């Protein structure tokens, strides 16, 4: 298997894809329990600061990702620690259990055959090879698309971002250490995004393609993938937060919500699609939205000591400078070390460029929030990946009811403070965790004229 550090030739990409794909039968032969156990062991090794591999990850990822060492450690632990054998098995059991259910057939197909009702059994079919194309903004985003197919028994070839090749390579190494029979079912490659020959060599051998990136990248990959393969798309995404009445009923409650929102904002330096760019804060409560903005600012200041932001690239610094300047002129700007919170009552207030620059806006409640999210399709709409909330059940119920009326809005709703650490077995972008990975062989049972009654196939 090619190492990620050298650009392979198209022939080498083809060879790697073929070799990894050839592991499918052996991988399935390991059994789900052994696969899940190996993956859990690999995750634990990487998550731990005491193992050699965990230490290497902590040493090499800050340089590769631009995140601070403390942020890397937080990301490793928060994303890998939940990956247990039990959790993986529960997910597999729930998702892959053969299903039998009644179906309604139409008129008898032949004289003498019986009609409805009848039954159908479905068996899961696992892909022979999954190709994963990663973006480089959040390094742990590569975890889920790699471990879920492997746990299913599908080999994976992962094309890393040219900016961040370290984590997938470390994950492969951890898997090899955990189970020498499972590790080779993951191939890690790095080649340029526009390299058509390289890409073709990979895509035409894959049954499923999982692609992360901007909308244009996703669209291009979809267009170049053979029609016989399925594409699971993770395009451009944004996230937001909502702070409702109950979280603003007292200074203490507001401070708790602000601390949670600060963590969501600081995590991965606000580079990912699960990072909140805007927090809508309900007006007319004991703690008003402007005061809440200052609390988030204070919480981000405090967080900077434990989870400092990584260095800022000059190009992004320019974007930050422009955004902060406009924010200060249009509303109020609360700047701190490595972050800024803008408070704006004007609808023209634009979200920041990431890197811990948060916009706080007042709102009247779930109805206004939903209208804002549904109304700006270029920024939110289908791009909305997560909505972190701090409110009581009544307000949450109202929010859910309103969101369900918007066909394009299908975010993951979660408590503030958990936006950046989604469970690896959670829904993502409105899809179940294994959606698109598994296809189903369905067998309809029924009497066939002139034959013995058929037993359902299981």
């Amino acid at each position, binding site marked *: 298997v090619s190492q990620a550090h050298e650009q392979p030739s198209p022939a080498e990409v083809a060879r790697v894809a073929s070799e990894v794909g050839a592991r499918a039968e052996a991988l399935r032969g390991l059994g789900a329990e052994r696969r899940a156990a190996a993956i859990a062991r690999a995750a634990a090794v990487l998550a731990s600061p005491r193992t050699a591999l965990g230490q290497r990850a902590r040493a090499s990822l800050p340089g590769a990702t631009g995140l601070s060492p403390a942020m890397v450690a937080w990301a490793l632990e928060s994303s890998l620690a939940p990956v247990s054998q039990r959790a993986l098995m529960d997910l597999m059991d729930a998702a892959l259990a053969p299903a039998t259910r009644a179906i309604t057939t139409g008129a008898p197909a032949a004289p003498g055959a019986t009609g409805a009702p009848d039954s159908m059994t479905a068996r899961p079919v696992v892909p022979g090879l999954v190709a994963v194309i990663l973006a480089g903004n959040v390094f742990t985003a590569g975890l889920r698309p790699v471990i879920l197919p492997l746990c299913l028994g599908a080999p994976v070839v992962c094309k890393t971002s040219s900016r961040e090749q370290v984590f997938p390579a470390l994950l492969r190494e951890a898997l090899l250490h955990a189970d020498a029979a499972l590790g080779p079912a993951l191939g890690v490659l790095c080649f340029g995004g526009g390299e058509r020959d390289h890409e073709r060599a990979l895509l035409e051998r894959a049954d499923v393609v999982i692609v992360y990136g901007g909308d244009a990248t996703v669209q291009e990959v979809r267009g170049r993938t053979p029609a016989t393969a399925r594409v699971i798309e993770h395009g451009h995404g*944004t996230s937001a937060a909502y702070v409702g009445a109950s979280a603003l009923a007292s200074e203490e409650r507001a401070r708790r919500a602000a601390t949670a929102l600060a963590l969501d904002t600081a995590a991965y330096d606000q580079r990912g699609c699960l990072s909140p760019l805007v927090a809508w804060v309900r007006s007319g409560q004991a703690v008003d939205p402007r005061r809440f903005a200052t609390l988030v600012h204070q919480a981000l200041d405090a967080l900077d000591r434990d989870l400092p932001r990584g260095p800022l690239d000059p*190009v992004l610094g320019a*974007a930050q400078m422009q955004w902060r*300047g*406009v924010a*200060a*002129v*249009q509303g109020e700007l609360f700047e701190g070390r490595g972050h800024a919170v803008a408070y704006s009552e004007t609808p023209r207030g634009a979200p920041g*460029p*990431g890197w811990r620059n948060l916009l706080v806006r007042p709102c009247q409640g779930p109805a206004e929030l939903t209208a804002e999210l549904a109304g700006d399709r270029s920024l939110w709409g289908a791009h909305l990946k997560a909505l972190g909330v701090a409110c009581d059940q009544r307000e949450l119920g109202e929010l859910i009811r309103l969101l369900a009326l918007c066909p394009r809005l299908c975010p993951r709703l979660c408590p503030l403070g958990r936006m950046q650490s989604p469970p690896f077995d959670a829904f993502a972008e409105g899809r179940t965790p294994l959606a698109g990975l598994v296809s189903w062989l369905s067998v309809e049972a029924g009497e066939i004229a002139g034959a013995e009654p058929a037993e359902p196939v299981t």
Partner: protein
Amino acid sequence: MIHDPGDARDALARRCATLIQTLARGARDDAERDALLVDIARWQARHIAPHGRLVHARARARGVDVNQVSSPALLPAVPTDVFRMARVAAHPPALDIKTFLTSGTTSGARGAHHLRDLSLYDLSAGAAAARALFPDVPRMTLVSLVPPEHEAPESSLSYMVARFHEWFGGQGSVHAWHQGALDLDRLAHALDRAVAADTPVALLGTSFAFVFAEDGLRRSWRLPARSRIMQTGGFKGRSREIAPDAMRALLEARYGVPESFIVAEYGMCELSSQLYETSLVDALAGRAGPRRLRAPAWVRASIVDPDTLTLVQGDQVGLVRIDDVANLDTAWAVQTSDLGRRVGDGLVLLGRAAGAAPRGCSLAVEEALGAVP
């Protein structure tokens, strides 16, 4: 904002004009310039809302009191995007006598620089060009490849070049531009006449205009000695892009003007003063030095850290900030998105940090990182 009856403003205007006139004669007095900049900053913070808000935000974040500071570097500059979002002027719209607009952006909003008085602009532009572009001649034939003023009344470049025609233009000066397009026949004719008469010319144009000319012209010239070229602006997606070194080589080959007589100008719609490369001045003085932009003495050009916006040390890469005494009524300090670094007594530009449109962090990050030079 506090209403200014005009006395304080007029007193500052007189100080600005005196300083520019004094320093234009070749003196340097950075202390006097900085003191004036701080006084303008205090006045603008009281009379221009965006300044007031920026100063307030800076005071809150870093404890900087505009009434206590002695160095302009400690006070915030106005980011160029603010000119797209808010009116930056101490005077009401009724007093505008000129509004310069930035070129269009992908978002469609254009920055606006509202001026109630062009005297400081004229004084500064004239003095800077006299020192950097025309130090050896009072007048010469100008051939400009920019839209004439009547075709682009909102363009600060067209305004400036029009003034250059008045102040420095000799016989035969022409605009090689007609009805929204570069007029290559007129350009070729002007160059032929200059060669025939052995009269040096100054070609003034934008980078993309020179590229259009390069693509359209079928002939080359060897312009008379002491001919020169002023090249300004980027390409802004209007033509193919050419690296500065390659661009100068093309211009030298096409017009027969040596590279030392090719001078880049750095100006912005939001400023009233311009920076020029030192190549021509150095060549005329027989000096060899690195090609660099040098600010006139009444302008404070600095490189700031993109994150903290404080001055960087040494030749570190950062963002270009321009403090301009001639921007009395609008923004005494403008923070650009241009990347640069200090070289000797000047600076070099390293390109513009592509503005990350606020369309969600993941996309912005992808695009912005992809744009790192």
